[in-house]
């Protein structure tokens, strides 16, 4: 069987031992790590995402597959560190906004973004606007992703966008918003660059915002 296909299957099965051994096999055969991840592991995770969208599988299986992929990717990362190289990464700063402790949606988005090659810095939940700002300054992410589950917390989203403007950072970072009370129209009104109705859509929008393949409701 084709190596990339085996890698995808190992991710779908959530077989961490196998993703590690297949990553080592790819390296021993001189396969380019980026190509192996994209055509192997990521393809498996794409299928997992599809199965989750149609609820043929549930979140626990998604987590197991994501863990298996992470373990395999780590083999490539360690190899590249030894070669003083690095996997190309688009970075996303992710967090649930101030006052809000409901973060399951954000956690699923994180899994899906990581599985699609993004480097995610997860600030957790109940994250004050100024913590986002400090981290944007420190990490220079490509995208800031913010979630909210309540109407009293989603109002911090425009405050975050305003704060980014005040700090002269708005032009340097794309802003994505999401969460149950956040509607696409409102996302546009507050000046967000993108909105994701679901985790998989968030990935498509994120890709489109940074010029990778994918499309969605990014403006």
């Amino acid at each position, binding site marked *: 069987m084709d190596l990339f296909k085996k890698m995808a299957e190992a991710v779908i099965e959530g077989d961490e031992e196998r993703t590690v051994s297949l990553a080592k096999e790819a390296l021993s055969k001189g396969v380019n790590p980026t190509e192996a991840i994209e055509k192997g592991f990521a393809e498996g995770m794409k299928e997992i995402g599809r199965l*989750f*969208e149609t*609820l043929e599988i*549930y*979140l*626990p299986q998604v*987590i197991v597959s994501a863990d298996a992929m992470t373990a395999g990717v780590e083999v490539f990362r360690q190899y590249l560190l030894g070669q003083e190289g690095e996997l190309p990464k688009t970075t996303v700063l992710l967090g649930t906004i*101030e*006052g*809000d*402790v*409901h973060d*399951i949606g954000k*956690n699923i988005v994180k899994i899906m973004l990581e599985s699609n090659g993004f480097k995610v810095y997860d600030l957790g939940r109940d994250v004050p606007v100024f913590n986002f700002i400090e981290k944007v300054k420190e990490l220079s992410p490509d995208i800031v992703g913010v979630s909210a589950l*309540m*109407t*009293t*917390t989603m*109002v*911090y989203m425009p405050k975050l966008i305003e704060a980014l403007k005040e700090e002269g950072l708005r032009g340097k970072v794309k802003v994505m918003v999401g969460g*149950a*009370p956040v*509607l696409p129209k409102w996302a546009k009104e507050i000046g967000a660059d993108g909105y994701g109705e*679901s985790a998989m859509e968030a990935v498509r929008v994120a890709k489109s915002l940074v010029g990778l393949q994918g499309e969605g409701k990014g403006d």
Partner: protein
Amino acid sequence: MRDQGKFFNFLEVIKRTESGERIKETDYDKELGKKTLALTKQYEIRYDPNLLIPTNDGMVDRIFQAAVDLFLDLGVYCTDTQRVIRFTQEELQWALENVPQEVQYGREKETVSVYPRKVEDRRDPACFFSAVGTPVTEEMFLSVAQSYAQEPLADTFSGPLIISYKGMPVTSGSPIEVEAAIWNTQMLREAAKQAGRPHIGIHNFQSTGEKTDATIASAQEKFGAFPGDGLLVAAIAEMKVDFERLKKVAFLRQSPYVLGALYGPLMGGYAGGPEGTAIALVAHHFLGLLVFSAERHNSFPIHIHHVCNTSRDMLWLISVVGQALARNSHLIFASNAFMASGPCTDMVIDELCAQSIASTVSGWHLNPAAVAKNRHPMRCSGMEPRIHAEVGHQVAKVGLTRKEANRIVLRLVEGYEKRIPEAPIGKMFDECYQLDKIRPTDEYESLLAMKKKEWKSLGFEVI
């Protein structure tokens, strides 16, 4: 007034938030998924998409036992201390044996007593009419709230919420949240008065203020919150609490207000599919009883993608959880109806009917209704809970069996399930109600009348 001797020692709960095993939250989440999957297999629990209201008593009893195992084994996670609060089998058993078997809401002629229900119970379900915190404008809040309070079948009511107050956004943790919270309670009592029911119980007198300080600030008689009203404290799904919730409990235990617990596990989320989420939802009731000292319980399990509980899998889940609790405990628990579609649509009427039948026949009280996936501003009205409650009363009155309920619910679901992903959001309150009379429009009334005729042809007649 609550009898503190019937609840687990709350100070001991607080101690355990500081002394329990410390584990990473992500590991706790993974453990939940593993355990529910293992318990689903061990107890042979199977979702059948063609049997939404099962009559298999053995299976629902096994779901209850699986929930006991899950609760004792997994414990409850406190996110502030990253520790697990665990209980012994004896402590859970003691709490279940001492469950308060009556809760009273309202005052004077509006006093209602709520008791535990049983499967296929011929007694009416209590109907807690609620706008479930749908965002509305400040100007429309009173009219919307009145549309709920005035409904004859409303045993209690609660309101929508406002997202701006006097032109300022209501922001969590800010002073405006406290101002808006006080206004919220005042307006709910005013709505009760305008509905001609000044003493009706408000089962959750605070929707706008989420933080504990805002909630407590609004809890005064001079603002309209009286003994016989109540508040709901929500667990953070799944099986988690934090100090913000526990502070509300600390206050409510010493207050004259009815303490209700609220649970909203996501089907498809950390607990897995319908079977695992059913186990987890039953276990949430143990959380409410032991950690929150809750006198009554309210559940809104929802589909992780469709944000409703009217799909096949959700109706099965609601039915088996209700039956498991009704057959194995004396808890007082209500089903919070979450509709995919919005007001004044034929779909919402069928969804309400299916959800109410599944809930009522399975032992739940009713807490209708969130509509339009509970996210579209101004899309809610007193008409949706009226429909839900009328159906529930009829189910009890005619003594609908689970078998017959299953037949009707299946027919209803077949009619709307394909539209769930892109469900119509329906009309806004001022489009489906006559504002001068606070009455549904003729269009909405006609739509309901037409649906009732259709239901009659299914062999289910709601007068």
